[in-house]
């Protein structure tokens, strides 16, 4: 992917975008947030919130519509055996199935990481911080 320029100092004021009341955003649901032309997918996975860039870099399919499931892994930690892992934490693009770790935005099998956003909950209100 194109390299992002380091944001020198990043002094720009951060903006908090209200997403939903906590009571309207229960576990197992997701929200599609558009800020200008930027789309962000926000998930509540068993009480933990995750916000990621919402367009798949492959062909721009909306990641907010992706299913959450597990995937197969095979690495030194598994002694190079293929195992099913990360159940419920792999976001699968609804377009063609690219898989992302919902915690980090890292794509499985690609040297690629989706931008992630901080999510805060204050006074029963869920925000993303940009």
């Amino acid at each position: 992917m194109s390299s992002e320029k380091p944001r020198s100092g990043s002094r720009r004021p951060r903006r908090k975008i209200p997403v939903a009341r906590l009571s309207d955003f229960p576990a197992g649901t997701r929200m599609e947030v558009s800020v200008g032309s930027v789309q962000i997918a926000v998930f509540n996975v068993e009480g933990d919130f995750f916000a990621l860039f919402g367009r798949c870099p492959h062909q721009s399919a909306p990641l907010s519509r992706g299913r959450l499931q597990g995937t197969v892994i095979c690495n030194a930690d598994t002694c190079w055996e293929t195992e099913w892992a990360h159940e419920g934490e792999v976001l699968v693009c609804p377009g063609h199935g690219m898989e992302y770790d919902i915690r980090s935005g890292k794509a499985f099998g690609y040297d690629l990481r989706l931008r992630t956003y901080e999510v805060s909950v204050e006074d029963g209100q869920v925000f993303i911080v940009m």
Partner: protein
Amino acid sequence: MANEGQPVTVQRVEPSLNPVQDEDLDQYGEELSGLTIVDVDVHVDDTLMFMLDYMEGHFRKRMETVLQADFKGEPGNSLRNMIAHIAWLGSSYDKPPRAKLATKEDLLARMEKGIIDYSILFPSELLPIGYLPEPEWAAALATAYNQYMVDAYKNLEGVKIAIVVAPQQPARAALEIDRHAGHPDVVSVCIPDAGVNPPIGDEKYWPIFEAAARHDLPISFHGIEALIHDNYPLRVAHFHTLMQVNSMGFPFTSMLQIMSVVCAGIPVRFPNLKFAILEAGLTWMPFIMYRLDAAYLRYRTELPALEKKPSEYIRDWYIGTHELEALPRRGDLAKLIDLYQGRDTTMWASDWPHLERDLIAGFMRYEMDDALRRKILGENALRFFGLTARK
């Protein structure tokens, strides 16, 4: 990055279970409005049950038997699904939503968005027709499919049909072409890539080309995965995963068909006949063109019918963009097209609604001049299929 002034919208959404939806068309609706858009590879639900009423005699009885088979809830009796389930059991563990079959209503809803001017319908179920072992069965299925399609999809705004032929019975294939060529909604003859043995340039198939040329109906070769068969040209005997079948099988079969047609001198014998290749990507086009040119220097006397270099025939072939390879840089697609001289022959194709369909966003992200984009999105396809611009 977020300015205070930027509008914010929040919407609760559900996981998408149906790739028939194509929000990407909406996303680019404004940018595409006013342009002629032809989607040259579209599929609708054509599973065997729709053909039952068009089968005759003992073939109808056999079809009834096939339709009684229950393959774990897969939509009735899909020949392709049966094969795929057995051979590649859960190979992709249902990773993306399974390709849903598009109903006529799905197709019409997509057309009603007003973005796509023409959808060209190609067979799904009968793409493996080339490797059905019984020629009569294959031909009967092709006849049933063609009649079903012209009955069910005629007189729809912007919907056109490619009939399919069973290469196993060339004389009967020619009759199919004669029967349907005059239909105003029939715009091409589809010959599936896989399982055609001997290769499609062989003299035994010439009645098919003669008939198509007689009616000025272009030929479209459509890629199909090998699934279980291990016959010509590069079949599953060589591949152990579906990814390998998909990646190599489609372009290799396409290249072999092109090579076979050109080396048999068919473009010389039928100079007005137009050819297209669908669902095999694009990047191999320069390879087959210029590789053959290099060999032509040494082996020209084997091909005495040719009047010019192989590449000068192949550059006249039309080619659908699906399955567009993942070219890494935005300028790469235009460079590639330049390399195979394809400005006037490359046609946008989505393969909607199949699993591996290309979203239009995947094409729009590539940089090119406006004239080239217009040609690819519609103008070239209008010429190939003999259609009139609707906008």
